């Protein structure tokens, strides 16, 4: 049994309205940058976003992507490292628009990114107005350290699922673990059921 360190407590956030903050989270006004590797810098001329697998593979260049209908959304985001940031504003293309351009009946997706990061999300959690490929944050272009030029935004799941530097989705018929999921993080990651680790 470790001795208690008198007066020590975990980081506190401010109080938030009831129901806004999932269990075990604290509210921050910062936007912490957490990375598992160096920030990629893919020139926009080389950037594409692809949906692969199934019947309709489709790829968009940056220009084509910018021409797609985009939405501005304000959402709360919740990191598994326990910080939550409320009312974050993003602009991007809904995955409904992107999936609308392919013919797909595969139920699972693996997001892949510059730098090699991957994360798995069921297609049902990417569609129905739940997810975007976001290229603007807080009114400006998405900074490279926060995943720019574009990142996945899936705010109803822990933020490790909102893959930075996203370049596409690989569609599959089984749910395969991505980078953190392989090491013990939850395959789904619902912050409201506190699904941080496998077995939660």
């Amino acid at each position, binding site marked *: 049994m470790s001795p208690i360190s008198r007066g020590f407590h975990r980081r506190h956030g401010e109080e938030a309205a009831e129901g806004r903050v999932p269990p075990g989270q604290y509210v921050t006004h910062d936007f912490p*940058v*957490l990375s598992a590797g*160096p920030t990629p810098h893919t020139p926009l001329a080389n950037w594409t976003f692809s949906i692969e697998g199934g019947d309709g593979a489709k790829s968009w260049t940056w220009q084509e992507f910018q021409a797609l209908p985009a939405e501005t959304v304000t959402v709360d985001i919740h990191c598994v490292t326990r910080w939550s940031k409320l009312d974050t504003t993003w602009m991007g293309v809904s995955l409904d628009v992107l999936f609308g351009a392919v013919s797909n009946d595969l139920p699972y997706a693996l997001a892949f990114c510059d730098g090699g990061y991957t994360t798995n999300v069921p297609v049902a959690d990417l569609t129905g107005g739940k997810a975007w490929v976001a290229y603007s944050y807080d009114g400006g272009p998405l900074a490279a350290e926060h995943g720019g030029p574009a990142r996945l935004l899936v705010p109803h799941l822990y933020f490790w699922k909102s893959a930075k530097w996203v370049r596409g989705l690989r569609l599959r018929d089984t749910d395969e673990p991505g980078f*953190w999921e392989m*090491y013990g993080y939850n395959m789904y990651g619902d912050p409201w059921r506190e699904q941080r680790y*496998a077995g939660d």
Partner: protein
Amino acid sequence: MEPLEDRVLDGNAIGGMLLEVFGTEMTTATGACGSCGTVGQVAELAVYRPGLGTVVRCRHCDNVLMVFVQVSGVTCVDLRGLASLT
């Protein structure tokens, strides 16, 4: 928060965790990258700690050499990126 580049550390920072995982001093151990072959002491490898786990990369090619994730007192260790660790 400090500049992003200041958040990347080196193997010295994880000496205690490595001692716990391997049971011996590891910062002077030599690792060879399985991707580019670069050889270096663990103390000099690039260490990223995004809170979810620890990712150790080759300084030359950024290949992931080691990943450590600690959950409920158990450490998951992946050394697949290393060609050797001596």
